[in-house]
């Protein structure tokens, strides 16, 4: 019997293994450089332009190495998707894990408020839709209920860990969601992976923190991805040249695809797909007020343009959203109706509400605003050129173009407290990234691989730099400090119910425990004449505020982040906040109840004596 020689290892397999090994080495080197850079980062030396000012060269070297390696991998034939996925995972770690490594506290003051709603659910076991403070969260409690459930199982001490690591988790989950969405738009895997890469660099608006909007964003994209992939008419495939006129697509949908579909059987998996999409729509509806509106618009648009074979997805989105508004959230909607009626139709005003006046900002913040706008402009320009290139190639990309436009229609209805434009950009950004990737794909086809790698590395590094500036540029006043959290915790644990808490501004870790026990007054948000009185004679004016029998006890809390935020946004001239603190410290009318390196809490001396 002849001895058979072992089968020879396929050349492709060998290449693949070699490629993965090389990638692993390069990625580890990038990670090591990044980590080494962070060890030598002194966040307390941060200037007015945020984290960008203190990140050392080793950090940037890590990002550069990763970017270069990605560009090499994405231009290689055949593509290794595992290899590219590893690059994207590391990009997410390099960009989004910075606060977890560098800061001693949960980043962003507004994330702390969300802990307060979870704390409320854990204490009460329910929500109060008619509550005076932060009522919107009580009317859309889905995200908070889920987090309360997880925290109750894992222990209260895990809440902070959950909140700190949530941006990283959201972005990691998003990789697969984006992959699904992009593969419904193109058959080309190179474009899919470049779209994913650009989507992360284009998304600078910072809506990925521990919040309902970050939680529902993957749901929004997943519903779109599932709809485009599995609920489309039989005629709408990726490989279609899509040259037919929109009307023809519409007629085809009306006359053909919709009527030729066989009736589903009970065991048909498509019924479970319907159930899944309905569950996603319902989760969105109970978790966030804006996303279901954007979802309804997107699905209506897709249906109207013949990209969906059935009307049920947009109909379900509208019915669920409407039912929630006139059902559980009706009290909130009634209280908001006057303001909403004034905003409807004023699209320009709604879009411009939160645009900062650059002349009022500190010099560093003015630079950061320019960086953010430049990055947005660059992404829009790349997308526009990509769209034109595709059009010239005979591809309409109706779905992607529509999904860029529909989020901005939200601005017709509401400014969303000035954030409408940024939220619309968030929803549109993956599809802008897709068009930008299409442009790069065309360019890559026209030049040599070496040139393409150099060009793409340079472009992606520029986008990364812009992203770092835009995303972390406000961290000098939004990073928060552990000492501030300790100060509010002291207040939350010691102050009696029905206390008045006067704060310099809401820009500090607050409301994360027993938030419903207190009434909050922000000095900086007072009308101008009232603010002038406080600045003119802080001790006397604030003494009168605190000497109020309506409240069981009264406090003033002033912190480092409040000061940094007020000065960076040009709300008070530099030094004014320090003078206010000094005036209270020198006044006999006040006594310090709590003090550390980041915060100070004052009470009336008479109240302290009574206690």
């Amino acid at each position, binding site marked *: 019997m002849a001895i058979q020689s072992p089968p020879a290892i396929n050349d492709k397999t060998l290449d693949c293994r070699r490629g993965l090994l090389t990638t692993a080495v390069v990625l580890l080197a990038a990670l090591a450089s990044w980590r080494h850079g962070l060890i030598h980062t002194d966040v307390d030396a941060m200037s007015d332009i945020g984290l960008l000012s203190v990140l050392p060269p080793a950090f940037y070297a890590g990002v550069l190495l990763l970017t270069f390696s990605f560009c090499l991998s994405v231009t290689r034939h055949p593509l290794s998707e595992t290899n590219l996925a590893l690059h994207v995972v590391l990009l997410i770690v390099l960009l989004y894990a910075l606060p977890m490594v560098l800061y001693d506290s949960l980043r962003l003051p507004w994330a702390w408020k969300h802990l307060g709603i979870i704390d409320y*659910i854990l204490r009460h076991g329910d929500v109060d839709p008619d509550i005076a403070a932060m009522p919107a969260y009580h009317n859309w409690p*889905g995200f908070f*209920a889920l987090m309360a*459930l*997880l925290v*109750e199982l894992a222990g209260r001490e895990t809440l902070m860990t959950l909140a700190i690591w949530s941006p990283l988790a959201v972005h990691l989950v998003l990789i*697969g*969601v984006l992959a699904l969405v992009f593969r419904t738009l193109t058959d080309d895997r190179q474009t899919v992976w470049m779209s994913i890469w650009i989507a992360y660099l284009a998304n600078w608006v910072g809506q990925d923190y521990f919040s309902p909007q970050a939680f529902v964003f993957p749901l929004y994209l997943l519903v779109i991805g*599932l709809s485009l992939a*599995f609920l489309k008419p039989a005629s709408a495939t990726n490989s279609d040249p899509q040259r037919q006129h929109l009307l023809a697509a519409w007629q085809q949908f009306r006359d053909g695809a919709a009527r030729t579909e066989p009736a589903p059987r009970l065991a048909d998996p498509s019924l479970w797909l319907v159930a899944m999409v309905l569950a996603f729509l319902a989760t969105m509806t109970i978790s966030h007020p804006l996303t279901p509106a954007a979802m309804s618009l997107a699905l209506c648009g897709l249906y109207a343009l013949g990209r969906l074979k059935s009307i049920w997805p947009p109909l379900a989105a509208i019915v669920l959203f409407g039912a929630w508004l006139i059902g559980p959230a009706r009290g909130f909607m009634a209280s908001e109706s006057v303001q909403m009626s004034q905003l409807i139709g004023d699209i320009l005003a709604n879009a411009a509400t939160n645009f900062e006046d650059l002349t009022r900002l500190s010099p560093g913040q003015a630079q950061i605003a320019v960086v953010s706008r430049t990055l947005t402009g660059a992404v829009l320009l790349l997308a526009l050129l990509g769209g034109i290139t595709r059009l010239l190639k005979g591809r309409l990309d109706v779905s992607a173009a529509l999904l860029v436009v529909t989020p901005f229609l939200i601005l017709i209805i509401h400014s969303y407290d000035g954030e409408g434009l940024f939220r619309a950009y968030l929803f549109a950004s993956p599809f802008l990234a897709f068009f930008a990737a299409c442009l790069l794909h065309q360019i890559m086809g026209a030049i040599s691989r070496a040139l393409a790698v150099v060009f793409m590395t340079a472009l992606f590094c520029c986008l990364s730099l812009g992203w770092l500036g835009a995303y972390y540029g406000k961290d000098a006043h939004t990073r928060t400090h552990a000492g501030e959290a300790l100060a509010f915790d002291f207040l939350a644990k010691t102050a009696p119910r029905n206390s008045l808490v006067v704060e310099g501004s809401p820009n500090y870790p607050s409301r994360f425990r027993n938030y419903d026990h207190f009434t909050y007054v922000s000095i900086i948000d007072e009308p101008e004449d009232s603010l002038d009185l406080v600045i003119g004679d802080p001790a006397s004016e604030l003494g009168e505020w605190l000497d109020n029998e309506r409240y069981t006890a009264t406090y003033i809390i002033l912190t480092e982040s409040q000061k940094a935020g007020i000065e960076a946004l040009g709300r008070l001239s530099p030094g004014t906040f320090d003078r206010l603190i000094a005036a209270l410290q020198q006044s006999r009318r006040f006594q310090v109840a709590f003090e550390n390196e980041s915060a100070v809490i004052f009470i009336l001396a008479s109240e302290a004596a009574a206690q």
Partner: protein
Amino acid sequence: MNGTRLPGVSMVLGASVTVAIATLPLDHPALDTFRIAFLLLMPGLALARLTRLPLSPLELVSLTLVASAALNTLIATLAVYADFWSTDTIFGLVLATTTALVLADRSCCNMR
């Protein structure tokens, strides 16, 4: 693109039974960890399996996690509004939902 094979019915059922045992009123942190792992994975996995969607592994992982989160959110929010907030009750409902999905999956397989 070829789809990714999902774990079979027996695996999902087996995990459900294991976790059902874990819901006994025993006080041990490991049981809570087990419950969390179940909540994060199993409902979504059962639903994703039912849909038989041709997904890549990466897409499948995301879909499973998001679907689990969605189903848990719906049940936890129901508990908040219907005033029966209790981790045991919520977990029981999630477990029941997952089991129903697994049974539906069996039924689908049999019908084929």
